[in-house]
């Protein structure tokens, strides 16, 4: 198999698997139990929390809430902060996000609008897939309680100007303080795709909440975290025990948390080297594709500075992305169309739509996301087949072009 879908998921690194192993059958205690193996589990859990906090540049381990993945993290953070703000102010609150967020954010915001009566704004993006901080600044209202912006887009790799947005939000917080506006303002960032490539130091960057999931950087699936800056108010969503200081009920998934934190450590150590390697692979892929195939467009930001290193999404004009993917699958080459909709829904992606592409061209999108499993020769192998596939498909459906 040749695997070009690292943005969907990655294999667990051997070191990570090894770190997890003792906590399944041997050191299996429940961190809430008072006896020895319970206490041991608790201490390993807190050690992991401390390590995660250090890697992220958090002030205190208390700021880390372990979850089942980024979908839960974003749900918990956004819903939790909106609820808390509505409760505190006793009035309708506003949530501001972009039109290109992952569905775990978009659908959470839509849900808040529907069942919670929240005001919502979905910021549009440029043709390159970038949100404009000026637009965001204008869209902030006195009752804006949550602003959620992803750091790197999963479908076409645009890196959003998080630092700039964070500054704008800081200024807004100061303005509110001066003018006595009571609505708290929380800045949430979905950093799922960017973590392995772009260091975020929360010491320097005023982000209030951050979502991560382990399986995008060689950790296990089903575990993630939500960073919550001290003093940020949010209501817990999952009720039950007092785990995670009452912020997320449910017995902690100790082996997976250990695995995630190990994966975070490795990613943090290897970040620069890894970024460099993947950037060179992706550049090579883009070069080959654009040189050897006619009428193809790399979507997203043009400058490498504004792109995630591992994602290259192409629009092959006049063909359906789905057909390209199935043809590649027949050669045991894995790629994706950007959003993982397995039952073959051809609903064009909300991301390409927001970037201003029409439905027809959006159907031609194919995403290649590179990572540890790739060698340079994988790209050569892909390119032995891809031009032929595109030619064949174009010859078969001339009308669609």
């Amino acid at each position, binding site marked *: 198999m040749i695997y070009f879908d690292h943005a969907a998921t990655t294999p667990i690194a051997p070191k990570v698997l090894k770190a997890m192993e003792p906590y399944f059958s041997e050191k299996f205690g429940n961190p809430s139990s008072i006896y020895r193996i319970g206490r041991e589990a608790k201490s390993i859990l807190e050690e992991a929390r401390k390590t995660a906090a250090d890697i992220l540049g958090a002030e205190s381990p208390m700021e880390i809430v372990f979850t089942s993945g980024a979908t839960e993290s974003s749900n918990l953070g956004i819903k939790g902060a909106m609820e808390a703000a509505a409760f505190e102010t006793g009035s309708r609150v506003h949530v501001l996000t972009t039109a290109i967020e992952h569905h775990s954010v978009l659908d959470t915001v839509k849900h808040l609008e529907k069942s919670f009566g929240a005001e919502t704004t979905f910021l549009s993006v440029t043709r390159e897939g970038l949100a404009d901080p000026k637009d965001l600044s204008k869209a902030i209202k006195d009752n804006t309680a949550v602003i959620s912006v992803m750091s790197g887009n999963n479908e076409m790799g645009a890196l959003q100007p998080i630092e700039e947005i964070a500054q704008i939000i800081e200024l807004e917080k100061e303005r509110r303080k001066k003018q006595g506006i009571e609505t708290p303002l929380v800045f949430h960032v979905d950093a799922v795709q960017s973590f392995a490539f772009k260091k975020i130091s929360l010491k320097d960057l005023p982000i209030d909440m951050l979502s991560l999931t382990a399986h995008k950087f060689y950790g296990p699936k089903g575990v993630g975290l939500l960073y919550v800056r001290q003093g940020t108010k949010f209501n817990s969503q999952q009720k039950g025990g007092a785990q995670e200081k009452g912020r997320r009920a449910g017995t902690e998934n100790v082996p997976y948390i250990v695995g995630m934190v190990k994966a975070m450590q490795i990613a943090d150590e290897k970040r620069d080297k890894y970024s460099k390697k993947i950037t060179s692979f992706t550049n090579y892929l883009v070069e080959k594709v654009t040189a050897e195939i006619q009428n193809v467009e790399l979507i997203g930001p043009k400058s490498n500075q504004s792109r995630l290193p591992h994602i290259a999404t192409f629009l092959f004009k006049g063909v359906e992305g*789905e057909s390209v993917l199935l043809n590649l699958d027949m050669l045991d080459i894995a790629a994706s169309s950007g959003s993982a909709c397995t*039952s073959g*829904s051809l609903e064009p992606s909300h991301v390409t739509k927001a970037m201003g592409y029409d439905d027809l061209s959006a159907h031609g999108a194919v995403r290649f996301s590179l990572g540890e499993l790739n060698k340079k020769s994988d790209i050569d192998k892909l390119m032995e087949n891809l031009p032929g596939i595109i030619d064949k498909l174009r010859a078969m459906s001339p009308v669609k072009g």
Partner: protein
Amino acid sequence: MKIAVAMSGGVDSSVAAALMVEKYGQDDVFGVTAKLFCYSKGVKEKACCSLEAIDDARAVCNKLGIPHYVINAEKEFRLSVINSFISAYQHGQTPIPCIACNTLIKFGSMLDKVKELGAEKLVTGHYARIKETNGKFQLLRGIDTVKDQTYFLYGLSQKQLSYIEFPLGGLEKSEVRKIAKQYGLRVAEKKESQGVCFVTEGTVADFIKKEITVSPGNIVNTKGEIVGHHEGYIFYTIGQRKRIGGGYREPMFVVAIDPLKNEIVIGNKDELYGKKLKYIAGHFIPGKEPRWPLKCTAKIRYNSDDVDCEVTKIKSEYGKHYSASFNKPQRAITPGQSIVLYQEDIVLGGGIIEKAD
């Protein structure tokens, strides 16, 4: 050579796939299921719907060790099948969506799609046979005369037939079930699908009601006298006895539906029978028209027997209008149903009944 098997998750297409794997080998066969409409109820709109039939097809492919792909044909299905189904009801007809689905979707957009995937043949579990002589293709009835599905396939062209293989055409249904059991396919005991596939809740009338406005009107006899009222003509089909009121001197039936006047016309048994009909959208499988008049047999609904018939072409500016006349009067000639023409086992073609004449 790559072979695509269109799989519905039912026993027939599953056995067809098993037979193809036997014939061509695992490496050359793949399964494909078209997602035709959104099955989700109460789930969020346009979600990735999971469907039992797709899961069944996938499970069968797993068992057979071949890949399975889901392709999306929702848009095409809506345009070519559902919309014309609704429009036919609007015109007071009783349509058969399966015919358009076969001609335009299964052997239309789905065939195009599998060709894109490199397939040189599309295989389905239909009970029908194809015979090739010197590059010319004939469509023949399935050996199992009860299950024969050529009635739904008369719209196929020479080009389409050249890509199709029907492995079940030479088998009886009972044999197919036996083969399914031999292969250990869990769909072996699955029930036959019935009714209109995209009407997943309630009746066809309930479905149509959601799509078009239905208004009450009069029931009249063949002299044009008002004898009752109806709640909407879409609730009626030719030959129906229900919903027409009572107290008549003899058994009465719906003999015509007039959508323009919004009237249901009822008549007695004699008035329900006719010896002649007009049909439109005529298709001839050999690719060219026969000599007129054409003597053959015909089926005017799926479950009817063949009757002797003579067909001629009607001069019309709209083209493809034909007239068929029968030796014996036929019960309930129904606009929207198809007339399919045969000579012995060979399917000659057919068309859509416009009206009794």
